[in-house]
């Protein structure tokens, strides 16, 4: 029991405090959270793409297609598992596992709050970069193991693209890390929690620091991370009209869903890097401009307001559903969902109010923790929506255009930003 409550009093992540039980709990929560997030992303992507293209998207499976991801998962699990002839069976099943491992191991160091992470390594950002570069290996082995032309070419193209944009990504990350050292002691840090705390200390999100240098570094990272995860407009290696689905052509059913899971998990992971490095991690917006206990209280109501808004939208959707008898079940389902969201909103409101007025330790810590996690997920969710927006709006890059942009445009600009950040940092000190 002591090991459960000792975490509430500490301000270190459980990995650093040696609290193995809480570290395990966090790992389970993160795993479940990512799975839920992937399901939501699947639904949001299909609906958002559809609405961008002035159509409705899935509407049949549940009310407004809300059960579509479950139907997809069920279908994929029941599909026949085909292994191509003369393909290397061992490497064939190892490849998606490598991609999945690389995508999920990154979540160990993602900071949802100052003590809400699985652990805080000294080399946090280096670890994240390294492990996400292991994802390339998964793609290359997948393409080779399929023993077929299209997957091999798709895999080689995809890995060449990922490796090229990793360089620009790394340079952008270095310029953000350099900004963490512009404090009194002149010592920076690579740890993820330390980076957000440096932004807190210096009182400015790194995207706005040395304007426009921080912004250009952020822009380069934002573009490179889209290329890194093989999403549109850089998705030539896996686009359906180009290479018949590229490196995962020969994968069917459950194995393909592992790839999809890994891709979405990688998207969330690189968005978390962007949020932590440039957008202030778990800090609420306008920490300096709108400070004071009144504004703190207002901003701490945001989680409850978000769920309340969602519940309201769902209620309105329920009311607008057609009233024929065969829609009854869907209507009831949507109504139950709306009530659930309303309950969560009420619970969050309760925590916000109690934690604020009483300042009792458990409630206040809950409120703080929920606020940190909420703002972090809010910013990551904005990035996820941007990913879908890019896919709906922009045409695909041709492969040679893609490579030339990566090496001839992104790399020089990121090098320039790095040098300029260093020069400005030294001059200002």
């Amino acid at each position, binding site marked *: 029991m002591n090991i459960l409550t000792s975490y509430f009093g500490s301000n270190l992540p459980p990995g650093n405090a040696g609290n193995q039980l809480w570290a395990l709990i966090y790992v389970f929560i993160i795993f479940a959270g990512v799975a839920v997030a992937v399901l939501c992303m699947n639904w949001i992507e299909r609906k958002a793409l559809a609405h961008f293209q002035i159509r409705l998207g899935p509407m049949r499976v549940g009310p407004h297609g809300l059960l579509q991801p479950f139907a997809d998962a069920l279908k994929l699990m029941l599909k026949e598992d085909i292994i191509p002839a003369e393909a290397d069976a*061992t490497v064939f099943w*190892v490849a998606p596992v490598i991609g999945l491992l690389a995508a999920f191991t990154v979540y160990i160091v993602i900071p949802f709050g100052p003590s809400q992470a699985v652990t805080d390594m*000294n*080399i946090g950002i*280096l*670890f994240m970069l*390294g492990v996400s570069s292991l994802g390339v*290996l998964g793609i290359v*082995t997948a393409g080779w193991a399929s023993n077929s032309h299209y997957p*091999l070419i798709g895999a080689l193209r995809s890995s060449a693209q990922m490796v090229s944009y990793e360089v620009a990504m790394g340079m952008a990350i270095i310029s953000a890390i350099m900004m963490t050292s512009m404090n009194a002691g002149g010592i920076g840090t690579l740890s993820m929690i330390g980076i957000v705390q440096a932004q807190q200390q210096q009182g400015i999100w790194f995207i706005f620091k040395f304007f426009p240098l921080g912004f250009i570094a952020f822009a380069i990272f934002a573009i490179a991370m889209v290329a890194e995860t093989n999403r549109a407009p850089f998705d030539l290696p896996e686009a359906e009209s180009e290479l018949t689905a590229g490196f995962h052509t020969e994968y069917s059913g459950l194995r393909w869903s592992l790839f999809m899971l890994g891709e979405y998990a990688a998207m969330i992971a690189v968005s978390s890097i962007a949020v932590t490095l440039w957008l202030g991690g778990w800090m609420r917006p306008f920490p300096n401009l709108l400070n004071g206990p009144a504004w703190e209280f207002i901003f701490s109501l945001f989680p409850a307001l978000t769920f309340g808004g969602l519940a309201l939208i769902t209620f309105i959707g329920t009311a607008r559903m057609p009233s024929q008898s065969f829609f009854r079940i869907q209507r009831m389902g949507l109504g139950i969902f709306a009530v659930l969201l309303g309950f969560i909103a009420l619970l969050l409101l309760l925590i916000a109010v109690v934690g604020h007025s009483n300042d009792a330790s458990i409630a206040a810590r809950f409120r703080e923790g929920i606020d940190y996690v909420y703002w972090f997920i809010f910013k990551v969710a904005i990035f996820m929506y941007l990913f879908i927006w890019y896919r709906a709006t922009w045409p695909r890059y041709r492969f040679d255009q893609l490579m030339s942009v990566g090496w001839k445009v992104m790399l020089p600009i990121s090098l320039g930003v790095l040098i300029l950040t260093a020069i400005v940092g030294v001059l200002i000190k």
Partner: protein
Amino acid sequence: MNPLLMNPAVNAGSAPVATPFFFYFLAGAAVVSGLFVITRRNAVHSALALIVTLLSVAGLYLMLYAPFVAGVQIIAYAGGIMVLFLFVIMLVDIERVSKERQYNRVWPVGLLAACALLALFVSAIVKGRSLLPDRMVQLPESSNTQQIAAALYGEAGRVGQYTFAFEIASLLLLVAILGAVIMTKKKI
């Protein structure tokens, strides 16, 4: 104060319980995959086994309180060099190769020489084990990167101890880039 020297702290009783388990697991994985690297017929299998070895050695570095070296190992070795190897294997390794002999004609001599080397190592370790202290100094892990940076780049206005070597290493990488590009271009 020399940034490379740490204050040694007494370690013996404060190691976490699971350390021997993780050490034997990682060391076993490293050695077994090393065996796979040198014995597989298929070069891609060897490359994958080498990746497992590199990651196990990175884990061993983490146990030795060297997180920065572990990070460099994962990024540069497992994420860079092995991707390069896999690319070349896929571009070069034609099917005919996998049906030929994989060991050369003088392999007994090579094995004998390696055994002699192993005997030399074993005798060195056995004879010298009294020189090694049995408690290990615990390096602080939370400032490892900063201290390596002080050694490589210098601090407080002075050049670090390894700054010159760092510059030469960057020149070496430049020369390697040029060499690799020139060697693989079809017409220079």
